[in-house]
Every structure is written in structure tokens, then in C-alpha cells.
């Protein structure tokens, strides 16, 4: 992009960014700007819908290239292409009324959700392994604290009699330090978002200048 192109794209980004921000902040107090902001947000929705097509093209091209080059696991890529084509045909037939019921929904619920549920179960083992790995890799005070708190929380969740104090400690941990830490992280992310947003609004972001 030349200097002129960069200047134009920066001006468009700043202009549209400020207009949308003012429209959202002013609301119905400034109807014209609010309408323009709404229109711009609708454009975002339409553009997002178009990117789904880009995604499908990307999926086919990446996996077709893998099959063509006989890369490791190319058989799975072939399976992805065939399955995608089959689902597209199935949905088209369904929309045309050629098939009874909702086979695409049944397929989604029986295949996708079942597989994802199985993977969700695996996450537990990955997390336990992660805690073990953390203690092996860097045994520091924060690590010890992490493991102790984890054990307290797990023990406090056991449905056994006589664990009253542990349950109280677990509830206090969740309500006070965990909640405070979580808010701290979220506040940090919010501050970072504000600063990045301001950089975009004043044209300091690199992505549309180069």
C-alpha cells in the first residue's frame, strides 16, 4: 500500500470509528449519527456473513492441498472434504423438501455433540496433567499455593459428612480471593482493550497503515 492508500485507509478507519463511537454514546439524542452507526453495524453483520464463504473456500483449499501433496494425515483431509460436501448436499436436499424430517440436525446432534462431549471429558485429564506438570516444572511459592488451593477446592466439593470447615474455606476462597483475582485479570484486559481502541481511533494501529 502506498502512502496515499495508507492515508486514505487511516482516515476511513478513524472517521468510521469515531462516528460509530459517537453514535453509540449519544444514542437517540443525535438521531442522524445514531442511524449512521446502526447502518455501519449492519454492514459489519453482512461482512461477517460473507466471511463464512471465505471460510468454506479456505477449508477446501487447505485440505485439497494436503491431499494433493500427500501430506501426513492426508486421508483425514480427504474425509473432511467428502464429509463437508455430503453435509452441503444433505442441507440443500433438506431445504428443497426432498427429505423428510431434519436429517442435518440429527446428524449434528448425534455426531458433533457426542464427539464434543467425549472431548469435554478428556479436558479433565488434561487439566490434572497440567497441575502435575506445573509442580514439576517450576516449584515456586505461587505454584505451591496453586496446588494447595486446588486440593482444598476439590476436597471441599466432596459430598462427605464432617467437611463443614473445608466447605466454608472453599466458599470463602471462591467468593473473595478467586473473585478478586478474576476481576483483576478482567480489569487488566479491559484496560488493554481501551488503550488498543484508542490507538485504532487515532490511527496508530499498524494493520491498516501498511
Amino acid at each position, binding site marked *: 500500500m502506498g502512502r496515499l492508500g495508507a492515508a486514505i485507509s487511516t482516515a476511513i478507519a478513524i472517521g468510521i470509528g469515531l462516528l460509530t463511537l459517537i453514535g453509540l454514546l449519544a444514542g437517540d439524542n443525535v438521531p442522524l449519527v445514531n442511524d449512521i452507526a446502526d447502518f455501519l453495524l449492519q454492514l459489519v453483520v453482512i461482512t461477517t456473513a460473507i466471511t463464512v464463504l471465505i471460510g468454506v473456500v*479456505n477449508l477446501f483449499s487447505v485440505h485439497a492441498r494436503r491431499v494433493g501433496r500427500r501430506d501426513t494425515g492426508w486421508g483425514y483431509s480427504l474425509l473432511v472434504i467428502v464429509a463437508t460436501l455430503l453435509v452441503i448436499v444433505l442441507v440443500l436436499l433438506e431445504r428443497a423438501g426432498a427429505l423428510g424430517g431434519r436429517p442435518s440436525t440429527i446428524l449434528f446432534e448425534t455426531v458433533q455433540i457426542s464427539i464434543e462431549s467425549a472431548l469435554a471429558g478428556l479436558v479433565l485429564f488434561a487439566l490434572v496433567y497440567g497441575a502435575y*506438570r506445573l509442580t514439576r516444572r517450576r516449584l515456586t511459592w505461587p505454584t505451591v499455593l496453586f496446588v494447595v488451593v486446588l486440593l482444598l477446592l476439590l476436597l471441599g466439593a466432596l459430598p462427605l459428612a464432617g467437611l463443614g470447615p473445608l466447605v466454608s474455606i472453599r466458599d470463602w476462597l471462591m467468593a473473595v480471593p478467586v473473585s478478586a483475582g478474576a476481576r483483576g485479570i478482567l480489569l487488566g484486559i479491559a484496560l488493554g482493550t481501551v488503550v488498543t481502541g484508542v490507538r485504532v481511533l*487515532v490511527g496508530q494501529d499498524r494493520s491498516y497503515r501498511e
Partner: protein
Amino acid sequence: MDSTTQVITVLILLLALVISLIATQFIRRRRDLVALRSIPAYQSLPLLVGEAIEANRPVHLSFGSATLGGSSTLLALASAELFYQTAQRAAIGAVPPIVTVSDTTAIPLGQDTLRRAYRSRDLLERYPRGSVRWYPAGPRSLAFAAALTATLGDDRVANNVLVGSFGPELALVTEAAARRNQGVIAASDQLEGQAVAYAMSDQPLIGEEIFTAGAYLGESAAQTASVVTLDVLRWLLILAITVPTAIEVVNAITDGRLWQNIGNLARALGGQ
């Protein structure tokens, strides 16, 4: 949005804008004015890229479900800046980086990030068009995580930079990377993902550190100024939280409420 929220939002934005512009001018005149604190993840990133180049294997960069046009737009831009810096270093290697996304709006962003990185090295002819991959996410992004675990093995990835929007499914990816002795730098804007990133990555980034990649890995004064702005805003926030709290604590001590509350807490911990 009610009028109080509108006023506070405008004030915060104006404050950030003024601090950012002033800091940029100061830093442009005197580079040594600001000493950035060390962040291990950013220190180790060039080493991870160097290892990948020497091993002739790709670096894997993932946005997760960070997206353009949604609430994580600015996170996606921050991730793109980090990936730009990483890809710029990796561009001299024979194997291009792999960028994975689970939202289609991030595909053009990923492609543009790689293109700019290769162009900055005058290597645009080697720009790898097929290196940005969309792996569709299911209802809980677990399908995306499963696809990434396969990618780590099939493409013989050397190291991973997983900075974007991830949930607990990040554990599957980091665990797969650990089994293959691959390095991982991870961070997420979701609390569950961030917790997993802290426990399971070699070098985690926490909270606002995600947004400072340009300052640590780049050379622009504006990006260093954004870190200064972040620090000033953080201190103002700390004051806004601690000063009213301190006043409230002093009031509670003087009227005896503090001891009453401590007694209540002790009774609650005793299970009574």
C-alpha cells in the same frame, strides 16, 4: 446506556487519548525515558522462533475464537500484532508459520498479518497463502481444539503461540504440545482459558500483557506509549479502588463495625 455510564466512558477514552498522545511525543524525543519491565514470554519468543527456524519446522500461531466485529475485536488486533512480530522473525526460515482461527472473520486478518510480515522482510514472493487455516468451532470450541492437536503432530510444529480467545479446551492443545516437547506461550481473555494458560504453558501472558506485544517486540514509540498509558490507567484504577476502601475501613474501625464483621467471619469459618 445511561448518562452516568456515557460520561464515565467518554472520560476514560479522553484520558487514555491524552496520556497516549503525550507519552508518544515524550518517547519519540527520548527513547530511554521508559524502561519496560521484563515479561518472560516476550523474552523467550525470539528464542522459540529461532529454534523453529533451526529445526526447519513451523511456528504455530492461533487466534482461538477471537473475532473481528464482535466483543473480541480489539483482542484480535492485539493478537495480530503479536503474530506479526513473530511471523516477521520466522519469515527468514524455510517453513512458514501456521496461523489457525476458529472464526471466519479472523481469516483475512491472519492472511494480512502474514503478508505484511513477509513484505516487511522483502520476501513477499514467499508469502504462504495456505498457511492460514480455519478450523470450525463447535458449540464449545472443542472441535477446534481437537483439530489443533492433530495439526501439532501432522505439521511437525516446533513451538506454539496461542494468544486469543480460548476456554478450558486450551488444556487439550497445551497437553498435546507438552507430549511432543513443543514450547507454548499462551494467553486468553476468558478466565477459564487464562487459568489453563497459566498452569500449562511454558510462558503465560496475563491480562493486559496480551496488548503490549508491539512495545516489547517492535520499535514504535506509539506502541511503547500505549504501555505507559496502560500503566497510568492501572494506577488510577488502583487509586480509585483503594482510596474509597481505605476510607471505608477507617470508618468501620472508628464505629466498631470492623470487629463485628471479623467476629461474623470467624463464626462462619467455624461452621456455626
